[in-house]
Structure formats: structure tokens, C-alpha cells
């Protein structure tokens, strides 16, 4: 990108150097922020949530990692496990810490490490506080599925609630519910309808009502009687009851929260907390590549402009180039480091390519992308893509032959019946569309989420919960994990659980997993 792309906005002013050397102070950060904001809002037309920049130490960064970047979290051993894992990797030098972590919240919080140089702080502000922030605020998935204004308060509420439960009911009892809910959290989101807005007051109110109800029905006389479960459901006729229970249901945690007969109110609330947080994180993996690409593209653009305007010196700009090229490095399949795509590399390359197509298209581009080629509005096109696509559809729509050639992509067909792997598409005329289709499928949420439905409850019999996993032969659930997870599910449900793996095409049952009722 040699020429300046015009975003239709006002070009930023030039001025003196913002800083020189590596050292920074709070004034430096503020100056950089203002200069960056001018470019981001003026030239790129980004729309962002209010920013909050927090300076933290590397030790605190490890804490932030553990909680998926969330500043508050409830206590659970699995976070400790993650923490120890990160700590070991970091101490042994296997893992460098990210320069930043950014949270999808309003205000949008970016964490900057104190060890960063002045240039890195500026880069990180451009990357996180403007790139990611714009993406969080504008991408359709985030808009529909998450509510950034309440998440921090909700997490605070969750931590407080779980701590109080531990006081009242003991750590073991709470851990039992959390373990089970965590195992099911990937099956604890509504995939097909957006999340309702979190309303903290209502959440707290409901928690309080549950408590009050629990207290009001506490009665020593009844307490010692065996629990009579099911209640009115038990009398209902099969089909009718299925309708009442809202079956089939793909959100297992939701179903348990509402219908599990043996759970105490506080246990339902804990399940709800895990479910709400899982729901909040649900969009992230589906747009990871775009999100990182967007942030990287934005910081590259902004840092280049700062350099052109004389706000940073050559040394600083070299540092930017060095750091960026590390981030967007894509090793080949045989270079070690795994064969997966680097989301930064792919996202950045595709976005840079869109700019090229919009401003200086070749004949090939005109044939492939007639509606955007040469439209002269590169930034508008990018903003549109950032807002309306997720990784899968973005690749399907915008992966150009040029990027496929640059990455030298090829496709292997792996048929376990054959003793060899077949190269069935490479970066040539015949292969472009094949590769694009297959790569898009990798990012299809259907491939990385396992969808499991509750299809029936044996209401007239022993209340066994029946689940179904629609799949095909050779793509079954990992058996040991499935059994352990079902044990957790049975513990929450209170009765037996059966999971059938059913062939999508023929309807044949491929495998069955069961778990007995909890003692």
C-alpha cells in the first residue's frame, strides 16, 4: 500500500514527535492516544466505545489470561489449572505474553503491559483500543449476542453470588454444580436466537426471590420426606409434556436450569451464571480471524500515518514493522508450529487485499469481485465487511485468488480407506473455488461446535433424559469424555441419561452412551 487511502474523512494534522526512545509516561500515552484517535475517527471513520486504558504488570497479565481477559471472576479450580499452565509456559519461555488484552465491554478496557516500549504502547492502543473496539461495537455477531455494557457488573454479581453460595452450602457443593455446568457449557448457548439483554437489577432480584422462596418453603417436617420430583409434570401425557418442556432443546444448561427436578434454587442460579458467561463468549471464536485481521490492519494503517505525519521517528516505525511482521507470519505446513492458519496473517492479508481490489484492481479481480473492484472506497468496503460478516462468510465472500496464491494454499483429501493423502486442489484456476469453499467450512461454527439436543424425557417411566447427537460414521464423540460429561449431566438432572449418536442421513444409531442417576 503505497498511496494513502482516503476514507472520506478529514486527514489528521501533522505535528512534532510524540516521543522519542523507549520510555513512556502517562502523558506520552495520552498524547499518542489523541494522535491515534484523530486518525482513527477522522480518516478511518471508526466508531468505538469509550476507551479505558489500564497499565498492568506481567504478573497481572497472567491473571488476566486465566480469566479469558475478564477482570473479575468467580473462584474455581479450573481457573487455577489454566493459571498454572500459563505460568509454566511463561516461566519456561515457551510463551511470550501478549502485548495487550482487550475486553468487549462498554467502556472498552485495554490492558497494556508496563514492560512495553513507547512504540509498543502506541501500537497496542491503535490495535486494541481502536481496531478491536470498532469490531466489537460494529460486528453483527457481537451486536446480537453480547451486551457489553453490563458484562462487568454481571461478572461482579456472579462472583459475589457464588462466594455467598460457598458460604451457605460449602465449597464442595458449589464445586459439584460448577464442574458439571462447565463440562456442558459448550452446549449451553442459544445458537439460533440472539441473547436477551442482561439486566443486572433483574438478575439480582431473581436471585433474591429464589432465596426468599427457598427460605419460605423450608419446613422441618417436609424436609425429611423423600424428595418427590417432577411435580405436575409427572401426570402430564408424553407428547403434551414434551411440548411443555420445550423439546427438542439444544441448550442443555437452559433446560436443566428450568426443568431439572432435583436442583435447589441456588444450583439453578449457578447454572444460569455459567450459561450467561458461555453465551457472552459464544461469538468470539466465530469471528476471531476477522477480529484480529481488523485490529492488525487498523494498527498498521494508523502507525504508518503517524510516521508519515512526522509524529513518530524512523526507529519507532522500524519497531512497528518488526513487531507486525512477527505477528502476521504464516509458517508453511511443514515448517513446524502446527499446520493451522494464523488468524492474524490470514485476516490481515485478506483485508489488505480488499484495499488493493478497491483501489487498483486487476482483470482477475474485476471478474471475481465485480461489485467492489475499483469502487474507490476501500475503507467503506472494509467497514461494511467488519460489520456484516463472520469468518466463514467473510472467506466465502472475499478470499481472492491473489491471497490463495500468496499463501500457496493447497487442499488435501484425507480418506481413511486409502493408504495415502491426495492433493486435490492447489493455487490454480481450477482450485481457487475448491480451496475457498473448504477453508470457509473450517470456520463454520457447525464444525467446531458439537450440537447435541435433548429430544425426550421419559416422564411416565423413570425420567430418563434422552439426548441425540446427529453426526455421521467416523465422527463420533470422544467416548471417555462423553461418558464423564454424561455423568455430570446425570448428576444435575437427578436421573438417568442416554445419549444416542445418530447418523444424519440414515437415522441409524451409531453409538450410545449412558449414565446412571446420581446417588
Amino acid at each position, binding site marked *: 500500500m503505497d498511496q494513502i487511502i482516503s476514507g472520506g474523512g478529514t486527514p489528521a494534522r501533522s505535528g512534532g514527535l510524540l516521543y522519542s526512545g523507549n520510555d513512556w509516561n502517562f502523558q506520552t500515552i495520552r498524547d499518542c492516544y489523541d494522535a491515534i484517535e484523530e486518525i482513527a475517527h477522522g480518516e478511518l471513520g471508526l466508531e468505538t466505545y469509550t476507551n479505558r486504558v489500564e497499565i498492568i504488570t506481567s504478573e497481572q497479565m497472567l491473571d488476566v489470561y486465566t480469566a479469558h481477559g475478564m477482570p473479575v471472576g468467580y473462584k474455581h479450580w479450573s481457573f487455577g489449572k489454566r493459571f*498454572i499452565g500459563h505460568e509454566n509456559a511463561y*516461566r519456561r519461555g515457551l510463551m511470550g505474553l501478549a502485548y495487550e488484552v482487550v475486553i468487549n465491554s462498554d467502556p472498552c478496557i485495554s490492558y497494556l503491559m508496563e514492560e512495553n516500549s513507547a512504540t509498543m504502547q502506541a501500537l497496542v492502543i491503535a490495535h486494541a483500543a481502536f481496531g478491536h473496539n470498532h469490531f466489537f461495537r460494529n460486528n453483527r455477531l457481537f451486536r446480537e449476542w453480547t451486551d457489553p455494557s453490563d458484562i462487568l457488573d454481571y461478572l461482579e454479581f456472579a462472583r459475589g453470588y457464588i462466594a455467598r453460595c460457598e458460604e451457605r452450602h460449602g465449597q464442595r457443593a458449589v464445586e459439584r454444580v460448577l464442574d458439571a455446568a462447565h463440562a456442558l*457449557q459448550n452446549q449451553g448457548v442459544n445458537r439460533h436466537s440472539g441473547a436477551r439483554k442482561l439486566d443486572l437489577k433483574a438478575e439480582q432480584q431473581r436471585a433474591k426471590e429464589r432465596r426468599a422462596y427457598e427460605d419460605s418453603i423450608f419446613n422441618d417436617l417436609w424436609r425429611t420426606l423423600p424428595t418427590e420430583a417432577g411435580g405436575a409434570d409427572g401426570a402430564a401425557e408424553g407428547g403434551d409434556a414434551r411440548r411443555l418442556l420445550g423439546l427438542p432443546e439444544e441448550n442443555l444448561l437452559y433446560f436443566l436450569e428450568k426443568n431439572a427436578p432435583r436442583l435447589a434454587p441456588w444450583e439453578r442460579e449457578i447454572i444460569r451464571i455459567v450459561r450467561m458467561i458461555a453465551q457472552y463468549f459464544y461469538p468470539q471464536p466465530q469471528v476471531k480471524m476477522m477480529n484480529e485481521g481488523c485490529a492488525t490492519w487498523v494498527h498498521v494503517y494508523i502507525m504508518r500515518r503517524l510516521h508519515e505525519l512526522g509524529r513518530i521517528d524512523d526507529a519507532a516505525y522500524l519497531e512497528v514493522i518488526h513487531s507486525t511482521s512477527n505477528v502476521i507470519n*504464516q509458517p*508453511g505446513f511443514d*515448517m513446524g508450529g502446527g499446520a493451522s492458519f494464523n488468524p492474524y496473517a490470514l485476516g490481515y492479508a485478506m483485508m489488505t487485499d480488499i484495499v488493493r481490489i478497491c483501489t487498483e484492481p486487476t482483470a482477475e479481480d474485476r471478474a471475481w469481485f465485480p461489485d467492489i473492484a475499483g469502487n474507490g472506497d476501500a475503507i467503506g468496503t472494509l467497514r461494511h465487511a467488519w460489520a456484516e460478516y463472520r469468518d466463514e462468510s467473510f472467506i466465502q465472500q472475499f478470499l481472492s485468488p491473489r491471497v490463495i496464491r500468496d499463501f500457496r494454499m493447497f487442499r488435501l483429501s484425507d480418506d481413511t480407506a486409502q*493408504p495415502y493423502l491426495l492433493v486435490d486442489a492447489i493455487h490454480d484456476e481450477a482450485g481457487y473455488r475448491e*480451496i475457498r469453499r473448504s477453508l470457509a467450512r473450517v470456520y463454520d461454527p457447525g464444525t467446531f461446535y458439537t450440537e447435541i439436543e435433548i429430544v425426550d424425557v421419559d416422564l411416565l417411566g423413570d425420567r430418563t433424559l434422552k439426548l441425540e447427537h446427529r453426526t455421521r*460414521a467416523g465422527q463420533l464423540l470422544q467416548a471417555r469424555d462423553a461418558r464423564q460429561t454424561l455423568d455430570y449431566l446425570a448428576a444435575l438432572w437427578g436421573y438417568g441419561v442416554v445419549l444416542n449418536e445418530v447418523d444424519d442421513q440414515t437415522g441409524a444409531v451409531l453409538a450410545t452412551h449412558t449414565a446412571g442417576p446420581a446417588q
Partner: protein
Amino acid sequence: MDIIDRRPNPHGKNLENRRRVLQRARSAVQTAVRDAVARGKIREVGQGNAISVPADALHEPSLHRVFSEGTREIVLTGNREFSRGDRLQRPPGGGGGQGSGAGQAGEQGGGEDSFRFVLSRDEFLDLFFDDLELPDLLKREISTTENGVPARSGLSNEGAPSHLDLGRTMRRSIARRLGLGRPKPAELLEVEERIAALEALRPASPEELEELEGLRERRGMLRQRLARIPWVDPVDLRFRRYTIMPQPATRAVMFCIMDVSGSMTERMKDLAKQFFLLLHVFLERRYKKVEIVFIRHAESAEEVDEDTFFHDPRTGGTIVSSALELMRTIQRERFPSANWNIYVAQASDGDNASSDTTRTASLLRDDILPAVQYYAYIEITGSGAVIRGETDLWRSYRAIADENDHLAIRQVGDRKEIFPVFRDLFSRQRDTAEA
């Protein structure tokens, strides 16, 4: 935009979560810790310990698909030489490498590696000695106490000026002054100024004269109150109080006594080493400073360093009393029992010159046992010195052990038995727990 400096915020948010992990994997961690101890050198155990536990103990299951058969497509980058239709050898290891690894690992069950902890010294030792306690430790400790240290114990009304608790004293003084209504000096000054100003007025109007009269009265009252109600009253004074607390001796010495005569094989020495090692780690947790003295003996005894102790073979007959005498001498010279907690661990195959056994027993009973905290004797079985199921030495020691609680004797035959025997010797006493 706000910039917030979070660096001064509390660190270690995850310490609690970390603790819970240890708790969760407790049994696995404990096994790993004991393995680590079994491998280490005596003085090194418990320092900077990384241990690994199988990932199973901390596995988080979930419902997820794995690819095992059928067809699938994989898109990769960095093609240099392939064209369409090329057939590639599957990578070795059941098709690992190129992403089919997930399926394979899944079939093998989990496929996760072991999980590595770095434990702090305290965590390590706590796990290691989960429920062990030296018998009657406290009682004996206090009885051997030499000096005391002052410890804070509340407040008192009197004391040396250097112990004055200024904060509390002033708080009480303020409360008293407020309660009794002591006027502020500034108030008096103000009244006096006003009086001076009025007195300077000539002629004064009747109202001013009246005001002057009132002010003079007020001045008198203020002066009186100021004089009567002191700034700091003796009742306000609070002093920090100290009590002299007995300071338990924090030093311990451990004597390792081992028979290195020809009848002790390498295997036997190794068993003995395990036992010494455990005892050392255990004492280290209890005391700030632990000294070790290695005494080996055959016909005669000598003090040696650790390496020589375990690895330098000697031959000859066995006279146990020589080692006990040497131990007693060293202890008298270097480790007076008033300042040191003394522990003795003796390992032997039970072989002794028959003429010496009586002397050994009396030395132990009359001279050594009264001076030491604890005496552990382990006899490594499998030697030729056994007569009617027990050795001479064992028989005489047993008679003494029946009378003395702090002499403990056990027989060990195999490496596996070392830890149980150790636990057995030092476990919290059942009878006191049940009482």
C-alpha cells in the same frame, strides 16, 4: 479516555484458584511428591520442586467430536512442489502431523500430557507430611526452652514512655476533650482580640460596653475551662504491653548412624538412606535450622560426610556401642541439649558383636535416651544375624522401647515399606486423637 494504573493493585488473584487445584489433585500430587523425594538427595529435597501429575486428575471433560474414519478435507499453506493428483505418504505415527492427530490422540483416551506444578517449599512439605507429627513435640520443646522473646499482648494504662501508643492516647484525649467541652485556644484568642478592640474604643456606646462585659465573663469562663481540662490527661495514656513468651528452640540436629560393616549390602544402605532422607525433610519443616551428623561404624565409629557415608564401603566386624559413644561425645561438645533438639536415626542389619550388645543397651537407656528428643531405629531385614526371628540387637532394643516412648523401632524389608514405616513412626498418635 481514562488511563488507569493498575500496577499497585493486589497481585496473586489466582492464588486461591491455584490452591484449589492442589486440593483437587491432592492424591495425585502426593504420590508425585513422594516420588520426587525418593529420587532426591537428603539436603536438596523440598527446594524448588517441580512435580508432574497425570493430566487425568485434572481433566475437564466435554462433549466433542473426533474424526476417526471417512473422508475430510484439509487446507494448508506453503505448497512448494505439489500439483493436483499427487499422492502423499501418510505421516508416520498414524497420520499425526497434519491435523489428523486429534483423532488419533482421542482414541488413545485424552491424549493430554502430564501436568506440571512448581510447588513452594511449604506446599511441598505439607503435602508430603500430610498428617504426621512428632510425638509430644511441644511439651518437650518448652521444657528445653532457654530464652524468651517479648510479644505484644494488648494495652495497659502504665508503662515506659517508649512504649506509649501515641495514636490510641490521642484518640482518647480528643474524645475526652470533646466530651468535656474543652474550648479551643483559638476561641479564647478571638474573644481576647475582640475585647482588646472594644477596650480601644473611646468613647464606647452602651451596647459596646454591654458586649465588653459579656465577653469578659466569657473570657473568664474559657480560661477556667482551659486550665481545668488538660490537653492530655493521665487517664488518656495507653501503653503497648509486652509479655515475655518462651521461645522454643528452633535448631535441631539429626544424627544418622549406620552400620557399614561387610554384612550391610548396597541395597540395605539404600533403604537406610531413604529413611534418613525422610527424617531430614521432616525435621526441616519443623525447625529453622537442621544440622546433620553422619556417623558410620563397623568395629569403630567415625564421623564422615554424606558421600562417604553412603558410598564408601568398609569391611569388618560390628561394634554398635562405638557409634553411640561417638554420637554422645559429639552431641556434648557441639550440640548441648539446652539449645538443640536432638534426633537420632540408626539403621543397621541387626548384626552386632555379642559381647557388645549389653553395653549398647545400657548406653542407650541410661545415657542417650534422656538427652534426645526422639530415637528411631530401623532394622533392615534379610541379614544372617537373625536368631529365632529376631536379632540380638533388636531384642535388647525392644525391651528398652517398651519403657521409653521416644525410642521407636521398626523392621524394614523392602523399599516400598520405607514410607509406611516412617508414617507409622511419626503419625499423629491415635490414642490422643481418639481420647
